């Protein structure tokens, strides 16, 4: 065995707290090590050249690089050794940066730890076997989860790229949050006017199949070959017949249904079409309010529907779609007003959320664009905006900034002044966060041109006094407490992960952080990839972001899918389970425990039953290997002997 070891300084990142020269020197004495050296930046072009040359010069047959995390550069170096003629699995990485130099202060201890990390890798690599990927076909269809602006952008870009797209939207219409906005910052452009055309593109594109009012039920398979079960929820209206004429919504007698689209600013009818530009423009019945369901009799809509589309008997329907990749753009949620009792959230009708206010501003909203306060439908003269309502607030478990509130508050403030010229508008803020093209200018316009009064300080309490709401807070610039008598209070409620985000993540087998936002492969360099190959992220499911950022991610995710699909065959990771039929006793324990059903029985000529791995289905978790009593089934690259070699390297000394 001729192992070559390369210790990376990573500038000072490693060399700063690890004696790399000593590590290299120690490495030279390790059994099987032929050559060891340290280098400034091993991942650099010359650094990789050095490795290739050494492989030739020293006839190395195994390579160990001690540098950063393998999650960072394993692939880079595998390619390097492959270029030099070695099998890419004759390579191991010792993580002496994230796990050593960056977490330990004592140089001696770090150096010793690094030496052992190298020893570990050397012992492992000596056990490594050459592995060769097999290739399989790709199903060039893509599933887009979520019909918000990010999802729509992704869908359109994929469709334009010639891919078949399946879009799943859980609400009755696509459009997402943007469809609810009145205007967009910083241009004060009409939101639905710029979104509408995209929505139409989605609905009319030959390559896009839209499942509205549907949710992902189950996802099976792997990159290139996913099977997705989709639940089409019962709308109780036959959409093939419904013309969207809207007569039913006018005649519907139960008028106190919660209006999901308008965030309950005003009640709506049990049968609704969410908004004029809805796509598809079809009616949906909410059985929790519909009298036909609640009282068992009514049937008004059924009677008056000219297309006779009403079907109270309708049931959920499950459809299965086969795709090769998935883009999840499942969006975000907002915290409930009730979680802000100090602001009277949920208790006082005249304390509303930012998104509710958008609907009050919007011409197609319940007030037809006249700002009327919910309690008495009067026009408010003094409006107070409270930013960071829940955001950046550890005490309710939301330490992060919701990203776009500062901007939409400025926008809503400006619009308020437009709607009600004689209004007084206050904004309580912690900081004004406006880092974007034309953003800061915009917040300044709000203050300078529109005379919005920005108060730097937090609000302590909001309470009613007569018809007014008293907003009690502090002005940190004046260093005093202030009270504002408001007619209407608008809270910039904190952005949260979308309801049900964790459940979806579990179906997708991607990970999510403690706030249930989805985790990207790398925060800087792989922002739309996930650790599950074939699954990509777009928009706010990954974290709060504004429209341009979401659209950008939508296109980015689409680009990723297009490049993934640019090949007809994909290479499967050869690090999968493998059965030694001479040892297998056919006890079937692996078959019963495999999470993927990737193992089947095989009858040998002598009639013996043994296990057989379906290479493309196996995902390489290794549960089978730790289940097999006789060690007959071994996960390649993580075999018992490879792990035992590592354990022994550490323990037997």
């Amino acid at each position: 065995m001729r192992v070559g070891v390369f210790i990376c300084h990573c500038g000072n990142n490693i060399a700063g707290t690890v004696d790399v020269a000593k590590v290299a020197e120690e490495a030279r004495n390790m059994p099987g090590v032929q050559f060891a050296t340290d280098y400034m930046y091993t991942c650099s072009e010359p650094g990789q050249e050095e490795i290739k040359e050494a492989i030739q010069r020293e006839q190395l047959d195994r390579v160990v690089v001690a540098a950063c995390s393998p999650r960072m550069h394993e692939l880079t170096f595998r390619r390097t050794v492959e270029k030099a003629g070695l099998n890419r699995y004759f390579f191991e990485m010792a993580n002496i940066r994230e796990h050593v130099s960056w977490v330990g202060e004592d140089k001696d201890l770090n150096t010793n730890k690094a030496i052992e990390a190298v020893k570990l890798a050397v012992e492992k690599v000596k056990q490594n076997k050459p592995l060769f990927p097999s290739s399989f076909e790709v199903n060039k269809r893509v599933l887009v989860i979520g019909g918000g602006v990010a999802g729509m952008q992704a869908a359109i870009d994929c469709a334009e790229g010639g891919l078949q797209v399946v879009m799943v939207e859980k609400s009755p219409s696509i459009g997402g949050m943007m469809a609810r906005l009145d205007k967009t910052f910083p241009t004060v452009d009409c939101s639905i006017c710029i979104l509408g055309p995209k929505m139409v593109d989605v609905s009319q594109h030959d390559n896009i199949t839209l499942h509205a009012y549907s949710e992902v039920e189950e996802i099976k398979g792997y990159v290139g070959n996913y099977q997705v079960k989709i639940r089409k929820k019962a709308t109780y209206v036959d959409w093939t017949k419904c013309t969207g004429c809207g007569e039913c919504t006018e005649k519907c007698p139960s008028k106190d249904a919660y209006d999901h689209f308008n965030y309950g600013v005003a009640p709506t009818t049990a049968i609704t079409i969410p908004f004029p530009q809805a796509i598809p423009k079809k009616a949906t019945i909410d059985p929790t309010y519909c009298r036909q369901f609640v009282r068992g009799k009514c049937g008004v809509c059924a009677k008056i529907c000219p297309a006779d589309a009403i079907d109270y008997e309708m049931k959920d329907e499950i459809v299965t779609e086969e795709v090769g990749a998935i883009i999840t753009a499942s969006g975000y949620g907002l915290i409930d007003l009730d979680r802000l009792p100090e602001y009277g959230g949920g208790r006082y009708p005249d304390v509303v959320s930012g998104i509710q206010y958008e609907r009050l501003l919007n011409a197609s909203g319940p007030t037809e664009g006249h700002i009327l306060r919910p309690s008495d439908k009067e026009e408010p003269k003094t409006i107070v905006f409270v930013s960071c309502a829940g955001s950046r607030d550890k005490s309710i478990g939301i330490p992060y900034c919701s990203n776009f509130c500062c901007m939409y508050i400025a926008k809503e403030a400006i619009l308020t002044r437009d709607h009600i010229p004689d209004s007084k508008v206050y904004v309580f803020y912690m900081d004004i966060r406006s880092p974007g093209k034309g953003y800061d200018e915009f917040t300044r316009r709000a203050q300078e041109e529109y005379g919005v009064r920005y108060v730097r300080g937090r609000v302590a309490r909001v309470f009613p006094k007569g018809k007014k709401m008293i907003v009690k807070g502090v002005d940190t610039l004046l260093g005093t407490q202030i009270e504002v008598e408001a007619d209407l209070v608008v809270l910039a409620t904190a952005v949260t992960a979308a309801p049900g985000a964790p459940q979806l993540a579990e179906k997708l087998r991607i990970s999510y952080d403690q706030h249930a936002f989805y985790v990207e492969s790398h925060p800087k360099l792989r922002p739309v990839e996930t650790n599950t190959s074939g699954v990509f992220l777009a928009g706010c499911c990954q974290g709060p972001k504004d429209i341009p950022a979401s659209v950008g991610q939508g296109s980015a995710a689409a680009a990723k899918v297009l490049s993934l699909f640019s090949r007809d065959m994909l290479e499967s990771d050869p690090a999968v389970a493998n059965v030694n039929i001479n040892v297998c006793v056919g006890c079937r324990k692996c078959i019963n425990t495999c999470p993927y059903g990737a193992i089947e029985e095989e009858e040998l000529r002598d009639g013996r039953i043994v296990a057989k791995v379906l290479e493309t289905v196996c995902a390489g978790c290794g549960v089978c290997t730790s289940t097999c009593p006789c060690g007959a089934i071994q996960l390649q690259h993580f075999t018992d002997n490879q792990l035992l070699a590592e354990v022994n390297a550490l323990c037997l000394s």
Partner: protein
Amino acid sequence: MTQKKLKEVVQKVLPDVDMVIGYRQGFDPVHATPFFVTRPEQIDELIWNPLCVHNLASYIPSLTTNKKVAVIVKGCDSRAINQYLQENLINRENLVVIGIPCSGVVSVSKVLKAVDHQIIESVSCENHAVTVKTSQGEKKLSVSDVSPDKCKTCLYPTPLVYDHLVGDPITSDKEPESVYDEVRSFEEKSLEDRFQFWKTELDRCIRCYACRNACPMCICQDRCIAESRDPHWVTQKTNQTEKFMYHMIHALHLAGRCVECEECTRVCPMEIPVAKIKKKINMEMDQLFDYKAGLNAEDTPPMYTFKVDEETIEEHEL
């Protein structure tokens, strides 16, 4: 009398099977030995008495694939059959189970001790007692005095699975809870004492693998990872570490599978209480997953399944 009835049953069964596995007299009066009956004239050699200690079920996995076999089982042995069925290691169609309700067997080594290892000339068994004749004279031993530990905690004297039952069912008079008293009292020892105990016990181990070979659930047999080089879990060194390792392997591979026939302890030439190790894990399986191995064929061994929410497992704090 049971032995007579047994022979009648075997008469009936033999024509439709390739063999009947039972017991016959061994090389001396105190040893019974497994007996594979293939011809009617052999039936008369069959015996049934408290000396019939072996778990004959151990033989069937290798046989039922291509032979039709009948096997004679006691209550304890029968759990192995259920366990085989759970792990579908045998083909039930090819198996005829002849169950015998058992009121307890003897531990040969205890008998020999009782007569301080004299040559035994004859043994006669009558209701719950064995009379042993040596050159020193006769000695009458009550079975319960010389029975193996498993009988003292036996909850299932009547086979749990059978096609023919020889004799009337017997119900256990043992407290289910008492089964693990041995474990509990052992756990009262200090950590250090426990370690010293196993150190001295396992120190005697000669790694002959008799315990493994006798174990009905050790289905790997000659492919056991205790002997293989790939994977290479255990070296050939004869030190304490490797001895511990071997017995841990045996125990952990039996987690949720051990049917408590205690063959391992019976066959150990060094008289190491091997079954005592498994008993603890059996107790855990019982308490964590409310599971005893081999009680019925439909269960899934707890180590090969899971619940999304494990009510009985809480997170460990540091």
